[in-house]
């Protein structure tokens, strides 16, 4: 796209984009470290993730302030206006992703001393791998203004939902088998839900990218497969 006649406007927009990229990088690392902390039972790494979240909050405020100032000064139109509104929305989504990664790390600290059935932790790790890939892809799509890539992320999220439903079912089963599992499984349930919510936020970012590039919202219904709201596991002896 051609540069603005007033070059400082381009500088302001470039700064917004690079702040978003920085936020994205931090959020990606937080999620990756939180899961590594879970798998390795590393409470210190989890604490480090919790501490980083403050930086993400500060960046989000910075993005919002810059966006508001740019709107006041430049009275942007069309693609510039959509770019600035999108920066505000995406910064909000990434900040929530950071919060969810931080909460995941908090749960890791809570369960790091408990015995962990490897199979179920493996399931959570697999789900997290998919979410990390989604986050990376959607951040790349934003940098390249690639709507096809963004929509692909938007479509894929139902696989994460389906995985979460099966983890949910499995955790219920563990808890029913042995009450000593309840504490660990409950924390893991919240942890898994946090990761599934991160997936949902990546689809929000994908929708914003579509709006930024085309000027139109995504109108189709997103495929969803989270059935945990109505999932039950039969107790032995009952129907």
């Amino acid at each position, binding site marked *: *796209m*051609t*540069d*603005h*006649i*007033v070059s400082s*406007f381009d500088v302001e927009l470039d700064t917004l984009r690079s702040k978003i990229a920085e936020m994205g990088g931090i959020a990606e690392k937080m999620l990756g470290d939180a899961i590594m902390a879970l798998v390795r039972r590393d409470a210190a790494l989890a604490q480090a993730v919790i501490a980083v979240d403050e930086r993400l909050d500060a960046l989000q405020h910075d993005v919002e302030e810059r966006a508001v100032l740019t709107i006041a000064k*430049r*009275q*942007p*139109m*069309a*693609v*510039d*206006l*959509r770019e600035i509104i999108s920066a*505000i*929305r995406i910064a*909000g989504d990434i900040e929530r992703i950071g919060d969810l990664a931080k909460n995941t790390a908090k749960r890791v600290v809570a369960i790091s001393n408990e015995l962990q059935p490897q199979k179920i932790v493996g399931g959570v790790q697999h789900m997290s791998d998919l979410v990390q890939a989604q986050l990376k892809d959607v951040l790349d799509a934003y940098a390249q203004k690639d709507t096809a890539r963004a929509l692909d992320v938007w479509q894929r999220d139902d696989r994460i939902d389906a995985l979460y439903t099966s983890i949910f079912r499995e955790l219920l089963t563990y808890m029913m088998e042995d009450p000593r599992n309840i504490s660990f499984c409950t924390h893991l349930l919240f942890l898994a839900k946090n990761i599934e919510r991160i997936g949902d936020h990546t689809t929000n970012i994908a929708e914003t990218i579509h709006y930024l590039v*085309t*000027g*139109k919202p995504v109108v189709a219904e997103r495929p969803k497969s989270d059935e945990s709201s109505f999932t039950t596991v039969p107790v032995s002896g009952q129907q």
Partner: protein
Amino acid sequence: MMTTMPNIELARAATAGAAEKAATKIVARDVNVYYGDKHALHDVSIDIPEKAVTAFIGPSGCGKSTFLRCINRMNDTIPICRVSGRIEIDGRDIYDRSLDPVQLRARVGMVFQKPNPFPKSIYENVAYGPRIHGLTSSKAELDEIVIMSLKRAGLYEEVKDRLGAPGTGLSGGQQQRLCIARAIAVNPEVILMDEPCSALDPIATAKIEGLIDELRENYTIVIVTHSMQQAARVSQRTAFFHLGRLVEEGPTEQIFTAPQDKRTQDYITGRFG
């Protein structure tokens, strides 16, 4: 951020519905304008809806004011100017030989960039048109028209105690509102405005913009403006002109949030002047 979305969606639906139902007041087809050998306007075709504000935007020299002046045949006063094509108001060709341009200019009023009140009193500025056109048969009727026009132009309260004072003694913003009152007094259907706020301070500009919002309930308004933000604020439809051509035209909210043509986007985002 989106907590007021339901109200916004309702308002947008209402505006969209209203725009679809609005009748067309002015139809232009294949309008070309030449100043001597210079081909200033190329094949302009546009429908202008009634009782709405249509904004013409574009860089200097793009032809927007030239086209505006076609609508009330002001270009007739320029000897080297030649207009071809068809412009209809309410289905009647305004360039038809049987049509009186003076009468046309009562139906289609004009407000100019620099306020140009007559060197007469405030009262006489407004009364002149109705008197000349024989619109009244008594002083009382004329008084009524003057007062109503000044009220509709949002000026009456400020000048009601000095209607005999010279029009040129008013501030810039007041003079412009006096010119609007003058245009309204002859009961026009269309009001053309050529950068009406360029010479005014921000407060006077805001008053005129507020006035335009009210006037469009009764009049079809076409406004040429250099300010994108003003066009976005006051108009329902916007037409972008460039190098003598109409590049893109559509609902204002769409032109300023997601224009179809790259030239439109480049202009409104300040990527070229």
